[in-house]
C-alpha cells in the first residue's frame, strides 16, 4: 500500500470511528452493515463524513448503500473521486 493510500485509509477510519462511536476492527471486505457497525440512519452520516473529510460531493446518483458497504468499497470510491 502506498503512503497516499495509507493516509487516505487512516482518514477514512477516523470518519468511520466518529460515525459509529466505536473502534473499527473489521476486515476491509467485511460488510459494515452485517457487522453491525452501520445502520440505515448512520449511513447518511458516513457519507457526509466522507464528503467533509475528502472535500468532494457524492452525487445523488451514487447514493447507493452498496458503494459504502465495506472499507474497501469506500476506499475505491474515494480513490475514483479524489485526485
Amino acid at each position, binding site marked *: 500500500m502506498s503512503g497516499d493510500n495509507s493516509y487516505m485509509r487512516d482518514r477514512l477510519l477516523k470518519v468511520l470511528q466518529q460515525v459509529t462511536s466505536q473502534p473499527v476492527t473489521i476486515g476491509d471486505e467485511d460488510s459494515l*452493515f452485517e457487522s453491525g457497525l452501520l445502520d*440505515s*440512519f448512520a*449511513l*447518511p452520516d458516513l*457519507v457526509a463524513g466522507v464528503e467533509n473529510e475528502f472535500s468532494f460531493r457524492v452525487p*445523488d*446518483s451514487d*447514493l*447507493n*448503500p452498496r458503494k459504502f458497504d465495506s472499507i474497501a468499497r469506500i476506499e475505491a470510491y474515494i480513490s475514483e473521486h479524489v485526485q
Partner: protein
Amino acid sequence: MSYLHTFGAHVPTRIVANAELAAELGCAPEWIESASGIRERRYADGDTVADLAIAAARDCLARAGMEASKLGLIMVSSGSAERRFPGPAATVAAALGLNTTPVLDLPIASAGSIFALSLASQLAVTYGDVLVVASEKMSSVIQGAARDQNTAILFGDGAGAALVSSRPSRIEIVDSVLHTDGANREDLSLDWGGPLRMNGRTVILQATRKLPAVIQEVLQRSGLVAAEVKQFVMHQANQNLIMKVARTLEVDASLMFSNIAKYGNTSSASMLIAASEWEPSPGYTVFAGFGAGFNWGALLARVA
C-alpha cells in the same frame, strides 16, 4: 394565488400497539419505537381506501362549513388503492353526492399529498375549490405470509384531507417544488398482489439528502432560510428521518411537527393527518414529503 383553508382526517378505531405487533413479529416493542419513533398505529380492517378517504373528506368539509357541491375538483392520492380503475376518487365524489365534478387519482405513495397540494394550488385558479384527499390502507399490503419485519413495524392506515382555494384565507400558499427521479424506482415498490418491497437503506440515504435539499430550494426561491421557518409539517415516514432532516437544516427538533408515535407511517395520508392536528401560528410553515418513485417535494405556506 392559492390558499389552504382547512384540513381534515380520519383514522380507524382499531389501535395496534407495538406490544401486539412485536409478539407477532418476534421482536421487542422497544426496538420498534427506537427504530421508528412509532408506539402504535391504526388498522382499518373492513374499511377500504375509499371509505377512509370519504370520512376524511367529510371531516374537512365539515371543518370548512362547506357543502360538497361547491367543490370544483377532487384529487385523491393513494398508493394502496384496491383497484386498477376507477381509483378511489370517483367513489369519494359519488359518496359526496357529486355527479359532474371532475376527479383525479394520484397513485403516488408517501409523496402523494405534497404532489396533490402543489398541483391543487395551481389548479384552484382554474377549477375553483379543490378538495385534496390522501388515503391509505397499508395494513392490507404488509399483512401476509411473507411478512417483512422492517416494513410491518412502520405502516398504518388512515386518511387526511385539505381544502385548497383561490379564495383568501389565513394560510397562503407561497410556492411549491416537485421532483421525480426514477433511477431508484425499484427500491420502494408495490406490484398488484405482491409484497411491499423496500430497500430501507437506499430510501433513507436518498431521503436524508433530498428532503433538506428540496426544503432549502423552495425557501431559497422566496429568499428565505430554514431558520426563518416556524414549523415543518412533513410526511411522517420515520421519526429518526424527521430528526435527521432537522439536524441537516440546523433547526430545532421542536419545529418538526410529529404525530408518528400515534399513527405510524400512513404513507401519502400522513402529511395531511399531521396537518389536521397542526395548529397554525403566524409565520412560515413548510410542508414536505418523499417517497416511492422517488418522488419528493416541498410547499411553502405563510400563516397570517
